[in-house]
């Protein structure tokens, strides 16, 4: 008898826990429960990704559209290369791009895409060349009746339109068109899942773009031509190199031109000096106009460059990944 009561009490506790959990789910709005995403894919291949969502409804609200944001490298041109459908017990349908003219109610005048970027940034990616592509469902749903929508978003996206190999953290967010990325007494009306693992694109002919791992050097803007101003940053905090502790760091570069020539600029002067951003930052920067830096002729275009960093004597050279191989950068926009 005692034993029976004991079990009953246990069940009661279980029931209570379930009720509490149920309330928690109902109050806390949309949830991305998990994402199925491959670890790697070849440039140009179509990758299936499934985003599993749980949308409990409570109180009165809506009808609202389910909003979905997909964080991808700009170079994939995902808006043109992606289709999304959804499946749920309550019905299936498609998701389409939200036009820039359709603004979120609580986005302070930003587009959905910009609102996502403002809220979630680059999702842990280290190069600011990502974009949030915003979609909404073809049908709206009400928040009434305590219905729980278990929805799968089925994404098919062609990766690597820019033909670049890369390591990147993809990101996903959901919300509804009525509430956006807000919280109130009823809970949080959105869910975001930013990549912990890096998705790898292979088989491309372009440079490897690594959004995941800190790089010894970065170039800003990440996509630029020889007629842009480019800022080269050497980040001495990434790893110890032969230049650790050097008071001055210089650029030693070779440009490849459209007419098949090369131009070397490897000197240790004010022209090639990277300045430390602050006295102890170990980050050194040089902003230059490649056309002028390499003294390209009027009819020449610089297509790419290879470079090292050197000390004041020019004898100590640091290259890609702290090796003897040069860093490479291709001047292109796509």
């Amino acid at each position: 008898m005692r034993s029976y009561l004991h079990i009953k009490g246990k069940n009661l506790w279980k029931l209570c826990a379930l009720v509490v959990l149920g309330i928690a789910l109902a109050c806390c709005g949309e949830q991305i429960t998990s994402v199925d995403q491959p670890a790697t894919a070849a440039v140009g291949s179509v990758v299936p990704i499934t985003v599993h969502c749980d949308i409990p409804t409570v109180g009165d609200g809506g009808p609202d559209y389910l909003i979905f944001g997909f964080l991808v490298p700009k170079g994939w041109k995902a808006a043109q290369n992606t289709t999304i459908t959804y499946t749920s017990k309550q019905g299936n349908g498609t998701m389409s791009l939200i036009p820039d003219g359709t603004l979120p109610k609580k986005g302070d005048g930003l587009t959905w895409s910009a609102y996502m970027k403002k809220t979630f940034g680059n999702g842990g990616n280290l190069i600011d060349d990502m974009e949030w592509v915003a979609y909404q469902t073809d049908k709206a749903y009400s928040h009434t009746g305590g219905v729980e929508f278990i929805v799968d978003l089925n994404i098919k996206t062609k990766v690597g339109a820019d033909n670049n190999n890369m390591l990147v953290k993809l990101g996903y967010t959901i919300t509804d068109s009525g509430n956006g990325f807000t919280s109130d007494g009823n809970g949080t009306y959105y869910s975001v899942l930013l990549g912990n693992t890096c998705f790898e694109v292979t088989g491309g002919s372009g440079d490897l773009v690594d959004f995941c791992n800190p790089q010894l050097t970065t170039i800003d803007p990440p996509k630029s031509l020889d007629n842009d101003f480019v800022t080269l940053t050497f980040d001495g905090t990434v790893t110890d190199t032969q230049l650790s502790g050097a008071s001055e760091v210089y650029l030693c570069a070779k440009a490849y031109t459209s007419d098949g020539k090369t131009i070397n600029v490897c000197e240790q002067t004010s022209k090639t000096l990277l300045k430390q951003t602050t006295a102890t930052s170990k980050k050194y920067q040089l902003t230059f106009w490649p056309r002028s830096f390499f003294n390209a002729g009027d009819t020449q275009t610089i297509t790419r460059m290879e470079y090292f960093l050197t000390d004041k004597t020019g004898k100590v050279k640091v290259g890609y990944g702290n090796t003897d191989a040069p860093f490479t950068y291709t001047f292109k926009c796509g």
Partner: protein
Amino acid sequence: MLLIAVFMMAVSSCKTEKIVPGSEAPKDIAGNWRVIKATRNGTDLTSIIDFSQFRISFTDKGYTLVNKLPFLISKDGAFALDDPQYPFKITFTATGDKPVSTAFTYPIVNGKRQLSITFSPGCTNNTYVYVLEKAN
């Protein structure tokens, strides 16, 4: 009858108002201009690039560039404003090239005319703004 009276009143009331055209002076941008502020995608470049030698010199219809830097055009030529009184757009036609236009504002800041020009000399995603002021 009443309708006609109302109509007549309405018509005559409109006639009493005459808008006097404002005498906004045509914008004269002739002279030598230097960069006092420059940004790339919102990042300030003014202190990290030497703009001190760069000049753009406007004459009546033409312009010349001195000590070139990335700009809308890289060769000398002719320019035109879309409206001489209220210009919003400036068009540069480098000799031998197609005309290129860009947004442009012409505010007075601290009593001095400024010329603010937005352009993309490299990739179209990279936007630069040069704020120019007349050089003495």
